[in-house]
C-alpha cells in the first residue's frame, strides 16, 4: 500500500515537474547586452585613467630625480623637516600627557587633604557612629601625617566608646611602620581600662614584636583589679616578647 502511494506521489511529482516547463522565463530585453557593453566600456575607461594617473606620477618622480640631483636634496630636506615637525608635535603631546599626570596627582592630593580634614573634624563629633565613620575613612588613606596620627592616638586614649577605641587601634596598626605610631601605641597601653582594648593591644604588640611594650604591659599586671583572662593574655605576650 505504501509502495503504491509512493509510486503515485512520484508520478504526480513528475507531472508537476513537466508542467513547470510551461513557466519558462521570458526573454530579457534586446538592449540588455548593449547596456552591459556601455557599463564595461565605462569601467575600462575609469581603470585606464587610474592606471594613467599612477604611471604619470611615477614617470614625473623618476624624471625629477634622474636629471636633477638638487631635487633629491630638496626631497631629503623635505623629509627631514617633516620628521622634525612630527617629532616635535609628538613631544608636545608627551608634555600634554605629563601636564595631565601632574594635574591628576594634584587632584588626588586635594582629595587626600579633604579626607584628612573630614577625619579630624568627624572624630570630634559627639555621635559614636560618626566617629566610627571617621576612623574608617583612614582606611582609604595611603599615609597618615602627624595631625591625623595625633588625632587617632587621642581618640585611642580618650574616646569614651570601646568600639571606637578598638577600631582606632586597628586603624593605627595600619600605620605601624611609622615610629611615632609605635611610640604612641606603647604609651597608650597603661591608659587602657577596657579588657577588650587591653587584649587587642597585647595582640597587636605581639604581632608587631614591639619589645618596648614589655614595661608598660608589666605595669598593667600590677593592677589588682585586672581581668583574669586579660592577665593571662598579657603574661603570655610578655613571655613571647622577651624570648
Amino acid at each position: 500500500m505504501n509502495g503504491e502511494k509512493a509510486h503515485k506521489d512520484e508520478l504526480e511529482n513528475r507531472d508537476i515537474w513537466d508542467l513547470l516547463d510551461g513557466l519558462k522565463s521570458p526573454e530579457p530585453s534586446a538592449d540588455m547586452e548593449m547596456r552591459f557593453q556601455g557599463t564595461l566600456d565605462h569601467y575600462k575607461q575609469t581603470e585606464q585613467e587610474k592606471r594613467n594617473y599612477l604611471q604619470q606620477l611615477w614617470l614625473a618622480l623618476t624624471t625629477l630625480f634622474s636629471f636633477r640631483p638638487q631635487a633629491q636634496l630638496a626631497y631629503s630636506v623635505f623629509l627631514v623637516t617633516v620628521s622634525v615637525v612630527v617629532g616635535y608635535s609628538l613631544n608636545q603631546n608627551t608634555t600634554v600627557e605629563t601636564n595631565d599626570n601632574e594635574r591628576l596627582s594634584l587632584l588626588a592630593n586635594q582629595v587626600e587633604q579633604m579626607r584628612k580634614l573630614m577625619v579630624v573634624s568627624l572624630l570630634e563629633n559627639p555621635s559614636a557612629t560618626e566617629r566610627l565613620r571617621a576612623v574608617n575613612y583612614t582606611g582609604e588613606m595611603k599615609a597618615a601625617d602627624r595631625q591625623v596620627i595625633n588625632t587617632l592616638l587621642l581618640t585611642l586614649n580618650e574616646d569614651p566608646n570601646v568600639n571606637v577605641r578598638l577600631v582606632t587601634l586597628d586603624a593605627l596598626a595600619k600605620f605601624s611602620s611609622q615610629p611615632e605610631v609605635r611610640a604612641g601605641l606603647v604609651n597608650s597601653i597603661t591608659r587602657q581600662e577596657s579588657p577588650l582594648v587591653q587584649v587587642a593591644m597585647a595582640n597587636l604588640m605581639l604581632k608587631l614584636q614591639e619589645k618596648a611594650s614589655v614595661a608598660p604591659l608589666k605595669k598593667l599586671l600590677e593592677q589588682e583589679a585586672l581581668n583574669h583572662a586579660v592577665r593571662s593574655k598579657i603574661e603570655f605576650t610578655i613571655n613571647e616578647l622577651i624570648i
Partner: protein
Amino acid sequence: MIDLNDEQLMQLVKAGDLDKMSLLFKRHCRSLYGFLYHMTHDRVASEDMVQNVFYRMLKYRSSYVGTGTFQTWMFHIARNVLKDNGKRRHPVPWSDKMEGLAENLTDGNTADQQLEKKHDQQQLYRAVELLKVQDREILTLSKFQELKYHQIAQILNISEGSVKVRVHRALNELKNIYQKNKLL
C-alpha cells in the same frame, strides 16, 4: 578565442583583459536573467540585477580563485545581489507577474485547450510564488537553470544529498499548494 571555456575566460579577465567579460555576459546573461526572474517575477529588476552581478564580477575579479566553475561563482554573487535587492524591492503587481506567462502559451492547440492550460499554469504560477524562498530557489536552479545537483550543492554550500532531499521536498510542497488551489 570563442573556444575558451568560462573559467579560462574569467582568468583572462582577472589578468586584465576586461573585454572577455562581454563574452561571458553573452553566454550567461539569459540563464542568469531566468534565475533572477523566477526569484523576483520582476523583469526590470531582474535586468538591473543581471547588470549588477556582472559589474560585481568585474570589480571583484581578483577574488575569483577558479576552484569551482564560473557558473557557481556567478550564482553565488547573484544570490548576494538578490539578498541586497530584496531589502529594497517593493512588491510587484500581479498583472506584471502574469505578463511573462502569456508569452509561453503559443502552441497550436484549440482555444479551449489553450485556455485550460493557461488556467493550469496560472495556478502553478501562484503555487510557485507561495513557496518558501529556499524551495523556490532550489527548484529554479534545478529545473529552469538545469544545474546538476553537485553544482547546486556548491552554490548553496550544502551536500549533494541535502540538495536531493530539498528538491524532493520542494516539489511535494509545490504539488500540495497547487492541488489545494485547484480545488478552490
